[in-house]
């Protein structure tokens, strides 16, 4: 009867050896993008012409020869728009997306990809992991945007901002897909 505890002790010891490492570099490394683009760099160079508006923090999976949309990421299902922790967007001033006003603050971004469009979801629940506990009740906005096919495939999932008429745009690109979400400044 003392074998089961002994086994358990071994297992716990072995697990301890195995899992008590300091955090390794993530397979899908984290990154951030600002609007204005490269804000931190422009700031130390005294080249800022616009105030800080937005920042996205996300993790970057790689294509690694896989079929991404429709296979790895199924059509019609909520995707965390990245990897690991849920993707976080922060607005440093009030903005407007599709006539919906968003107050300054931190939000979580999700998307539901389809072959021809993506539904972008802006949700109030921050500091969470993935889309596994996505709570529709905390949605602030859902916006449909068309998918643009691009000939040059993007190996590493990319989120970034670009200047656009009346404000700026939030862009997501991976594999042969690119989507463009216009955001107005108020």
């Amino acid at each position, binding site marked *: 009867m003392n074998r089961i505890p002994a086994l358990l002790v071994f*297992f716990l010891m072995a697990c301890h050896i195995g899992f008590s490492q300091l955090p390794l570099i*993530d397979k899908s490394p984290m990154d951030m993008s600002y609007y204005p683009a490269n804000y931190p760099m422009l*700031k130390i160079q005294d080249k800022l012409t616009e105030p800080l508006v937005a920042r996205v923090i996300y993790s970057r999976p790689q294509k690694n020869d896989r079929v991404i949309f429709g296979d790895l990421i199924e059509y019609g299902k909520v995707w965390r728009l990245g990897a690991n922790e849920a993707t976080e967007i922060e607005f440093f001033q009030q903005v407007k997306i599709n006539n919906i006003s968003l107050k300054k603050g931190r939000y979580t971004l999700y998307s539901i990809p389809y072959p021809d469009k993506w539904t972008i979801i802006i949700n109030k629940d921050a500091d969470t992991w993935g889309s596994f506990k996505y709570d529709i009740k905390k949605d602030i906005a859902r916006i449909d945007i068309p998918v643009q096919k691009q000939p040059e495939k993007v190996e590493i999932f990319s989120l970034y901002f670009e200047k656009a008429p009346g404000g700026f745009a939030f862009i997501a690109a991976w594999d042969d897909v690119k989507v463009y979400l216009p955001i107005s400044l108020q």
Partner: protein
Amino acid sequence: MQPGTMLKYTCPYLCNNQFAMFRKKVYLLLFLFPLLFSCRQNEAPKKTNDVIDSLQSATINEYAPRDQSPMDMSYYPLDYPVQKMNGTDSTGPVARIIYSRPHKKGRNIFGDKPESLCQYGKEWRLGANEATELELFENVNISGKNVSRGRYIVYCIPFADKWTIIFNTNLFTWGLQRDHSKDIFKVDIPVSKQIPALEDFTMVFISTPGGADLLMAWDDVKASLPIDFSK
């Protein structure tokens, strides 16, 4: 410890009936499996770096090129987002650090040699790329001084026997330049030997009674910033 050695010591009271050999094999397997796994974990950083480097050179991404020193974040409570997902979080997040992780790549990191990457007595951004950002979701106490909830950039001045850690309020900046008029907090903490040496710069919160240590470790050096959340 060698798995075989362990087996020898544990066998006398495990191998005392007719299924001894069978059990021995099962135990050996149970033993070896996690140990192998842990060895693989030890190797992982190097492999990952190789992957990162090869991707860096092999792929062109006109939108947002991948960083050589990838960003990472650490929460306190540890793995808060996972806890939240699992419904095991009891409070909100208390602290979060966002930093980039440079690799040693055979270089001399901390020292006063001409080739030392982080020179003794000179400011270092505690990471790479953007300035390292600490967000405190509660008021805390560090070395007897109150630090209000909010966001700070954190940087360091390394010496052979201590690091000076500085909090600054000039947010959203690149790590190479600092506005010293916005320094709000400064504390010296001792350094100790990191064994084994770490290839990738690492920051992580480690629970302590009443708070957490922000552990900062790279190469063969580590330092801990004690944060008290109870006050």
